[in-house]
């Protein structure tokens, strides 16, 4: 068996309840349980997280930088997607 540094996993941490999970970095581990413990020891030992996700790096599908134009740009010129487009009569409470 060829020696390895074990497979790579990406780690996402949630700083507090209600917050989104954010990418914190990576760890190496043989399986999910080990990845979870390693993620806690590396990225959460100072109490920085209330929740952890670990994902094999190979499972992440990323957009390509070349996609940026068709994929992301068109939204910016369509005002109706933004709340400011909609006017509400004075005195009416929306929420």
């Amino acid at each position, binding site marked *: 068996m060829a020696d390895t*540094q*074990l497979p790579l996993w990406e780690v996402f941490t949630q700083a507090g309840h209600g917050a989104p999970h954010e990418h914190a970095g990576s*760890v*190496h*581990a*043989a399986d999910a*349980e*080990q990845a979870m*413990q*390693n993620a806690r*020891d*590396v990225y959460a*030992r100072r109490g920085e997280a209330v929740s952890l996700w670990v994902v094999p790096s190979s499972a992440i599908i990323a957009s390509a930088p070349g996609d940026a134009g068709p994929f992301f740009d068109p939204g910016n010129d369509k005002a109706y997607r933004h709340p400011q487009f909609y006017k509400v009569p004075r005195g009416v409470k929306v929420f």
Partner: protein
Amino acid sequence: MTVPSVAGKREEEIANPLFEYLLRLGDDRLVLGHRMSEWCGHGPILEEDIAMANIALDLVGQGSSLLQLAGVTEGAGRDEDALAYFRGEPEFRNAQLVELPKGDFAFTMVRQFLFDAYSVLQLDALQKSTFAQLAGLASKALKEDSYHLRHSSDWVLRLGDGTEESHARAQTALDELWRFTGELFESDAVDEAVRDKGIVVDQAAIQSRWQQVVADVTRRATLTLPTAGAAATGGRRGRHTEFLGHMLAEMQIVARSHPGAKW
């Protein structure tokens, strides 16, 4: 002519059982934490260096807090550093299991597992004690040791049910460590005396549950439980293996070379 008497007591009477009891708790963790800290920079993979340092840090921290409480209980002005650095081997009260050299990674993890499985049961009883300060320390330590148990039992499984080589090393470790486990469940006059302080740990019941946990993990790890032989004993009374002396010589050398100095 009267002959001066040389006969002494077979065993020392214990003046302060609570102090003795806290030393046992604190010394177990300080010594085990020290042994685990020897791995820093030498672990089998980077993530494990971090994991083992985490365990070492928790255990030394617990040892420090417990020895501090012991010093207060003794009431002779000794703090945790005075107790850690200026007692000799006969005054240490840890079980022999924790003072054994770290060995290979299998030895370290099997020993850690055997201790963690005991520790979580002991701490669970201690956190219910009416001696408030100890209950508080035990509750915090229980969270930490539960995490350690998850880690160490995981490794016992991986090594036992890994490769032929890891299985052989894990089995050897278990065989060598087994005779040191009995001491964890001893019960004596000190345990009896501290019941009055609200510290009630049913060692026999804990041993029974520990045996179940250990039997379950070793079975899943495809390891064979050793048959009980003569159990090592003496640590609780200051009678240790030859290993503790070397360990303390190293641990204490700088502090002892500058008595009274601040660090």
